[in-house]
């Protein structure tokens, strides 16, 4: 009865989705900034391999952020 009134499943899914999206996207975006920062520093230090690796991390992180945002909007529109 209480579970029916509280909509426990929907509430828990909301909490899970908001937590994963809010924290996950911030983590991925921060990782992207970390990659860009390292790329700049390593390029100045003339370490091309490490700089490329940092740039790859940044590109993947920003791509993941974009994918997460697009997925979120697509899920919303297909409700």
């Amino acid at each position, binding site marked *: 009865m209480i579970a029916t009134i509280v909509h426990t499943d929907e509430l828990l899914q909301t909490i899970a989705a908001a*937590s994963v999206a809010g924290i996950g996207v911030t983590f991925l975006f921060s990782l992207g900034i970390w990659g860009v920062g390292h790329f700049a520093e390593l390029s100045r230090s003339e370490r091309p391999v490490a700089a490329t690796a940092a740039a790859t991390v940044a590109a993947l992180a920003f791509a993941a952020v974009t994918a997460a945002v697009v997925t979120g909007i697509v899920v919303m529109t297909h409700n």
Partner: protein
Amino acid sequence: MDSDVILILVIGTALAFDFTNGFHDTANVVATSISTGAARPQVAIGAAALLNFVGAFISISVAATVAKDVVDAEVITPTIVFAGLIGAIAWNLITWWFGLPSSSSHALIGGVVGSAVAAVGFDAVIAEGVVGKVLIPAVVAPVLAFLVAGIAIGVSYRVVGKHRPGIVSRGYRYGQIVSGGLLALAHGTNDAQKTMGIITLALIANGTLGADADPPFWVIASAATAIALGTYSGGWRIIKTTGTRIIKMDAAQGFSAQGAGAAVILASTHYGFPLSTTHVINGGIMGSGAAKRLSAVRWGVAGNIFMAWVLTLPAAAAIGALTYGFTRIFGTGALGPVLVTLMALSLVLAAFVRRAERGSPVEAAGG
């Protein structure tokens, strides 16, 4: 004929409510981006208005909750919906006048519940919907935004902590273009849907739509337009009014707060929970501030949110009930609602003139 007049009054009042919702909430949506320098005020406000408009089209779950899960549409009349709207608007004006906290969303639900109880009794209220879809999410959502933003900013400081501030700040400012946009989109989708739900409820009550009908396209488009115009108008007031709700924070905090707010509102909207978007946005801002240092949090705002939780629903319900009782003095026709509309317009006009004469800035109320 009478019912058509009342229906037109309900639609006009609901769209006016939607406009004021956007007008009030612009500050909450754009303040963080402007504060950190992520966007110029003109750009932030224009984008927020546009994304509020777009957001209104991406979901109808919240509209369905407001139309079908709060009160029993089978026993509701357009006059009950009208009285509920007047209850919400009156409470918003009273709180605006006295500088008290308010939530437009809670006022709307409270007003309709109050007028329905006055007209039909407690049988008209769907307790499961009010408790499960309105009251509990109203408490959970701001706390969730607080925690998500707090953890997110902790994670971001840990990841980028050793980098030069220039790169980090610039990066998060670019990020805020996306997070701020998502927040405006989320605000538009949750708040505009409440108006769609109320108009749909009135159309069902009037017999224009079937009991299980979704909002027609013209309802969605008009609600989207009203909230977008309100957002745009409210934004220009912010530019002209110094000392409004601009909160000092760094770009990473702004990104975390906006991201947490958008995530909570969008996830809640997906499941049809009508939230106070202002409470959620403030929850995110406080969470990102608290993670840095507790004294950075505006605990007074937290107290105001608590007061809004306690006061708004019963107060708007009481005014909605009184308004319904007043309209019944003049019978079941359109005379009562027409008189109430004229009185409400006179009071609103008088209030704005008095405020303008005093020269006080308009305080933002919550959405």
